[in-house]
Protein backbone atom coordinates (compact mmCIF):
# COMPACT_ATOMS: atom_id res chain seq x y z
CA UNK A 1 0.00 0.00 0.00
CA UNK A 2 0.97 3.64 -0.14
CA UNK A 3 0.73 6.43 2.40
CA UNK A 4 0.08 9.90 1.03
CA UNK A 5 2.39 12.75 2.03
CA UNK A 6 0.58 16.09 2.24
CA UNK A 7 3.39 17.97 0.50
CA UNK A 8 4.93 18.23 -2.94
CA UNK A 9 8.31 16.63 -3.54
CA UNK A 10 9.61 20.00 -4.75
CA UNK A 11 7.89 23.43 -4.68
CA UNK A 12 5.77 24.36 -7.70
CA UNK A 13 5.18 28.05 -8.31
CA UNK A 14 4.04 29.84 -11.44
CA UNK A 15 4.36 33.57 -12.05
CA UNK A 16 1.38 34.03 -14.39
CA UNK A 17 -1.82 32.53 -15.73
CA UNK A 18 -0.71 30.69 -18.89
CA UNK A 19 -3.23 28.14 -20.24
CA UNK A 20 -1.21 27.60 -23.41
CA UNK A 21 1.78 26.36 -21.41
CA UNK A 22 -0.65 24.14 -19.47
CA UNK A 23 -1.76 22.64 -22.78
CA UNK A 24 1.85 21.70 -23.55
CA UNK A 25 2.63 20.51 -20.02
CA UNK A 26 -0.24 18.02 -20.12
CA UNK A 27 2.08 15.96 -22.36
CA UNK A 28 3.90 15.00 -19.15
CA UNK A 29 0.59 14.19 -17.39
CA UNK A 30 -1.14 11.89 -19.87
CA UNK A 31 1.31 11.60 -22.77
CA UNK A 32 3.35 8.62 -23.95
CA UNK A 33 6.50 9.60 -22.02
CA UNK A 34 4.65 11.30 -19.17
CA UNK A 35 4.67 10.68 -15.45
CA UNK A 36 1.52 8.53 -15.36
CA UNK A 37 2.97 6.17 -17.97
CA UNK A 38 6.24 6.08 -16.04
CA UNK A 39 4.63 5.33 -12.67
CA UNK A 40 2.36 2.63 -14.08
CA UNK A 41 5.18 1.07 -16.14
CA UNK A 42 7.53 0.64 -13.17
CA UNK A 43 4.94 -0.27 -10.56
CA UNK A 44 3.62 -2.93 -12.94
CA UNK A 45 7.03 -4.34 -13.91
CA UNK A 46 8.23 -4.81 -10.34
CA UNK A 47 6.18 -7.97 -9.67
CA UNK A 48 8.16 -10.08 -12.12
CA UNK A 49 11.61 -8.44 -12.03
CA UNK A 50 14.59 -10.17 -10.37
CA UNK A 51 14.64 -9.51 -6.62
CA UNK A 52 17.91 -7.57 -6.78
CA UNK A 53 16.23 -4.67 -8.61
CA UNK A 54 12.63 -4.78 -7.31
CA UNK A 55 13.35 -2.22 -4.57
CA UNK A 56 14.79 0.28 -7.04
CA UNK A 57 11.96 -0.06 -9.55
CA UNK A 58 9.36 0.13 -6.76
CA UNK A 59 10.90 3.33 -5.42
CA UNK A 60 11.32 5.03 -8.79
CA UNK A 61 7.69 4.15 -9.60
CA UNK A 62 6.65 5.74 -6.33
CA UNK A 63 8.71 8.88 -7.00
CA UNK A 64 6.98 9.17 -10.40
CA UNK A 65 3.63 9.53 -8.60
CA UNK A 66 5.04 12.58 -6.83
CA UNK A 67 6.12 13.99 -10.20
CA UNK A 68 2.63 13.40 -11.55
CA UNK A 69 1.34 15.52 -8.67
CA UNK A 70 3.85 18.27 -9.48
CA UNK A 71 2.75 18.38 -13.14
CA UNK A 72 -0.91 18.44 -12.06
CA UNK A 73 -0.12 21.34 -9.73
CA UNK A 74 1.53 23.26 -12.58
CA UNK A 75 -1.46 22.73 -14.88
CA UNK A 76 -3.92 23.61 -12.11
CA UNK A 77 -2.09 26.83 -11.22
CA UNK A 78 -1.58 27.89 -14.85
CA UNK A 79 -5.29 27.52 -15.71
CA UNK A 80 -7.23 28.23 -12.50
CA UNK A 81 -7.70 31.95 -13.23
CA UNK A 82 -8.17 31.65 -17.00
CA UNK A 83 -11.41 32.81 -18.59
CA UNK A 84 -13.29 30.72 -21.16
CA UNK A 85 -11.96 33.12 -23.80
CA UNK A 86 -8.35 32.60 -22.65
CA UNK A 87 -8.86 28.82 -22.70
CA UNK A 88 -10.12 29.11 -26.29
CA UNK A 89 -7.22 31.30 -27.34
CA UNK A 90 -4.77 28.80 -25.82
CA UNK A 91 -6.20 25.99 -27.91
CA UNK A 92 -8.03 24.54 -24.90
CA UNK A 93 -11.55 25.32 -26.13
CA UNK A 94 -12.29 21.65 -26.79
CA UNK A 95 -10.89 20.74 -23.39
CA UNK A 96 -12.98 23.42 -21.68
CA UNK A 97 -16.14 22.25 -23.48
CA UNK A 98 -15.72 18.76 -22.10
CA UNK A 99 -13.89 19.23 -18.79
CA UNK A 100 -14.04 22.88 -17.70
CA UNK A 101 -10.76 23.31 -15.74
CA UNK A 102 -10.59 19.68 -14.61
CA UNK A 103 -7.41 17.85 -15.48
CA UNK A 104 -7.70 15.03 -17.96
CA UNK A 105 -5.17 12.35 -18.85
CA UNK A 106 -4.36 13.23 -22.43
CA UNK A 107 -1.29 14.38 -24.33
CA UNK A 108 -0.59 17.89 -25.66
CA UNK A 109 -2.53 17.08 -28.86
CA UNK A 110 -5.57 15.85 -26.92
CA UNK A 111 -5.11 12.09 -27.42
CA UNK A 112 -6.40 10.27 -24.34
CA UNK A 113 -3.94 8.26 -22.22
CA UNK A 114 -3.37 4.70 -23.34
CA UNK A 115 -1.87 1.61 -21.71
CA UNK A 116 -0.16 0.99 -25.06
CA UNK A 117 2.37 3.68 -24.09
CA UNK A 118 4.36 1.11 -22.15
CA UNK A 119 4.82 -2.61 -22.02
CA UNK A 120 5.84 -5.39 -19.69
CA UNK A 121 7.94 -7.93 -21.53
CA UNK A 122 8.80 -10.13 -18.58
CA UNK A 123 12.42 -10.11 -19.72
CA UNK A 124 14.35 -7.96 -17.25
CA UNK A 125 16.88 -6.63 -19.79
CA UNK A 126 14.11 -5.71 -22.26
CA UNK A 127 12.06 -4.07 -19.49
CA UNK A 128 14.97 -2.10 -18.02
CA UNK A 129 16.12 -0.88 -21.45
CA UNK A 130 12.59 0.37 -22.06
CA UNK A 131 12.79 2.17 -18.71
CA UNK A 132 16.09 3.85 -19.66
CA UNK A 133 14.62 4.97 -23.01
CA UNK A 134 11.49 6.28 -21.25
CA UNK A 135 13.59 8.38 -18.88
CA UNK A 136 15.65 9.82 -21.73
CA UNK A 137 12.50 10.66 -23.72
CA UNK A 138 10.97 12.36 -20.68
CA UNK A 139 14.22 14.28 -20.11
CA UNK A 140 14.07 15.54 -23.71
CA UNK A 141 10.40 16.52 -23.32
CA UNK A 142 11.20 18.54 -20.19
CA UNK A 143 13.89 20.39 -22.15
CA UNK A 144 11.44 21.20 -24.98
CA UNK A 145 8.93 22.42 -22.39
CA UNK A 146 11.55 24.61 -20.70
CA UNK A 147 12.40 26.08 -24.13
CA UNK A 148 8.77 27.18 -24.56
CA UNK A 149 8.35 29.31 -21.42
CA UNK A 150 9.92 32.42 -19.90
CA UNK A 151 8.27 31.82 -16.50
CA UNK A 152 11.30 31.48 -14.22
CA UNK A 153 9.28 29.90 -11.38
CA UNK A 154 7.94 27.24 -13.73
CA UNK A 155 11.38 26.68 -15.26
CA UNK A 156 12.77 26.01 -11.76
CA UNK A 157 10.29 23.17 -11.14
CA UNK A 158 10.67 21.77 -14.68
CA UNK A 159 14.45 21.78 -14.29
CA UNK A 160 14.11 19.73 -11.11
CA UNK A 161 11.97 17.19 -12.98
CA UNK A 162 14.42 17.08 -15.91
CA UNK A 163 17.27 16.33 -13.49
CA UNK A 164 15.29 13.51 -11.90
CA UNK A 165 14.95 11.83 -15.31
CA UNK A 166 18.76 11.83 -15.59
CA UNK A 167 19.11 10.21 -12.15
CA UNK A 168 16.47 7.59 -12.88
CA UNK A 169 18.14 6.73 -16.18
CA UNK A 170 21.47 6.35 -14.36
CA UNK A 171 19.96 4.05 -11.71
CA UNK A 172 18.24 1.90 -14.36
CA UNK A 173 21.58 1.59 -16.22
CA UNK A 174 23.15 0.34 -12.98
CA UNK A 175 20.25 -2.09 -12.56
CA UNK A 176 21.01 -3.52 -16.04
CA UNK A 177 24.61 -4.14 -14.99
CA UNK A 178 23.46 -5.82 -11.76
CA UNK A 179 21.18 -8.15 -13.76
CA UNK A 180 23.92 -8.91 -16.30
CA UNK A 181 26.40 -9.74 -13.52
CA UNK A 182 23.82 -11.94 -11.86
CA UNK A 183 23.00 -13.77 -15.08
CA UNK A 184 26.67 -14.44 -15.88
CA UNK A 185 27.31 -15.64 -12.31
CA UNK A 186 24.54 -18.19 -12.57
CA UNK A 187 26.14 -19.73 -15.68
CA UNK A 188 29.23 -20.64 -13.62
CA UNK A 189 27.25 -22.88 -11.29
Amino acid at each position, binding site marked *: *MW*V*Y*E*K*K*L*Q*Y*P*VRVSKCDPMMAKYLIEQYGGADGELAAALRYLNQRYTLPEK*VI*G*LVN*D*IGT*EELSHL*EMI*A*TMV*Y*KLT*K*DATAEQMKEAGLGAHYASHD*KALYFNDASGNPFSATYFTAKGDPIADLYEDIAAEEKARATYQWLINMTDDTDLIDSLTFLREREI*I*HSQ*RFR*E*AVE*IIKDDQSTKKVF
Partner: protein
Amino acid sequence: MTEKQPSKQNETTQAYYTLLEQIQALDFVLVELTLYLGTHPEDSQAIQQFNTTSLQSNQLKQQYQQLYGPLYQFGASPSGTPWNWKDAPWPWQV
Protein backbone atom coordinates in the same frame (compact mmCIF):
# COMPACT_ATOMS: atom_id res chain seq x y z
CA MET B 1 -12.19 29.31 -10.04
CA THR B 2 -10.71 30.73 -6.86
CA GLU B 3 -7.85 29.16 -4.99
CA LYS B 4 -8.94 27.87 -1.59
CA GLN B 5 -7.28 29.97 1.04
CA PRO B 6 -5.76 28.17 3.99
CA SER B 7 -7.76 28.44 7.19
CA LYS B 8 -6.88 31.09 9.79
CA GLN B 9 -5.08 28.79 12.22
CA ASN B 10 -3.19 27.44 9.23
CA GLU B 11 -2.00 30.71 7.79
CA THR B 12 0.57 30.28 5.07
CA THR B 13 3.18 32.58 6.51
CA GLN B 14 6.78 32.83 5.44
CA ALA B 15 7.60 30.56 8.38
CA TYR B 16 5.34 27.90 6.90
CA TYR B 17 7.13 27.98 3.54
CA THR B 18 10.56 28.00 5.18
CA LEU B 19 9.82 24.95 7.33
CA LEU B 20 8.14 23.13 4.42
CA GLU B 21 11.14 23.73 2.17
CA GLN B 22 13.54 22.52 4.88
CA ILE B 23 11.55 19.27 5.05
CA GLN B 24 11.43 19.02 1.25
CA ALA B 25 15.21 19.46 1.11
CA LEU B 26 15.87 16.73 3.70
CA ASP B 27 13.34 14.39 2.11
CA PHE B 28 14.96 14.95 -1.25
CA VAL B 29 18.24 13.71 0.21
CA LEU B 30 16.34 10.66 1.47
CA VAL B 31 14.70 9.96 -1.93
CA GLU B 32 18.05 10.32 -3.66
CA LEU B 33 19.85 8.06 -1.16
CA THR B 34 17.03 5.49 -1.32
CA LEU B 35 17.49 5.15 -5.09
CA TYR B 36 21.30 5.24 -4.84
CA LEU B 37 21.32 2.52 -2.17
CA GLY B 38 19.05 0.43 -4.39
CA THR B 39 22.08 -0.13 -6.63
CA HIS B 40 24.88 0.50 -4.07
CA PRO B 41 23.66 -1.44 -1.00
CA GLU B 42 27.18 -1.84 0.48
CA ASP B 43 27.94 1.90 0.78
CA SER B 44 28.01 2.24 4.56
CA GLN B 45 28.78 5.97 4.40
CA ALA B 46 25.62 6.56 2.37
CA ILE B 47 23.62 4.44 4.82
CA GLN B 48 24.98 6.52 7.69
CA GLN B 49 23.96 9.71 5.87
CA PHE B 50 20.53 8.17 5.22
CA ASN B 51 19.97 7.34 8.89
CA THR B 52 21.14 10.77 10.09
CA THR B 53 18.97 12.59 7.55
CA SER B 54 15.99 10.40 8.41
CA LEU B 55 16.26 11.48 12.07
CA GLN B 56 16.57 15.17 11.10
CA SER B 57 13.57 14.91 8.78
CA ASN B 58 11.43 13.25 11.45
CA GLN B 59 12.32 15.98 13.96
CA LEU B 60 11.33 18.77 11.56
CA LYS B 61 8.14 16.94 10.61
CA GLN B 62 7.10 16.71 14.26
CA GLN B 63 7.58 20.46 14.54
CA TYR B 64 5.67 21.07 11.29
CA GLN B 65 2.77 18.85 12.28
CA GLN B 66 2.32 20.57 15.64
CA LEU B 67 1.98 23.90 13.80
CA TYR B 68 0.23 22.98 10.55
CA GLY B 69 -1.43 19.59 10.99
CA PRO B 70 -0.68 16.05 9.83
CA LEU B 71 1.58 15.32 6.87
CA TYR B 72 0.60 11.64 6.65
CA GLN B 73 -2.52 9.64 7.18
CA PHE B 74 -3.68 6.08 7.87
CA GLY B 75 -2.13 6.48 11.31
CA ALA B 76 1.36 7.59 10.33
CA SER B 77 0.63 11.03 11.85
CA PRO B 78 -1.38 11.81 15.01
CA SER B 79 -4.55 13.89 14.61
CA GLY B 80 -5.72 17.05 16.33
CA THR B 81 -9.32 17.43 17.55
CA PRO B 82 -11.39 18.01 15.53
CA TRP B 83 -10.00 15.77 12.79
CA ASN B 84 -7.63 18.06 10.89
CA TRP B 85 -6.32 15.85 8.09
CA LYS B 86 -9.05 17.20 5.80
CA ASP B 87 -8.02 20.83 6.35
CA ALA B 88 -6.62 22.97 3.53
CA PRO B 89 -4.15 23.82 2.25
CA TRP B 90 -3.51 20.82 0.02
CA PRO B 91 -0.12 20.72 -1.70
CA TRP B 92 -1.35 22.14 -5.01
CA GLN B 93 -2.92 25.14 -3.22
CA VAL B 94 0.29 26.61 -1.77
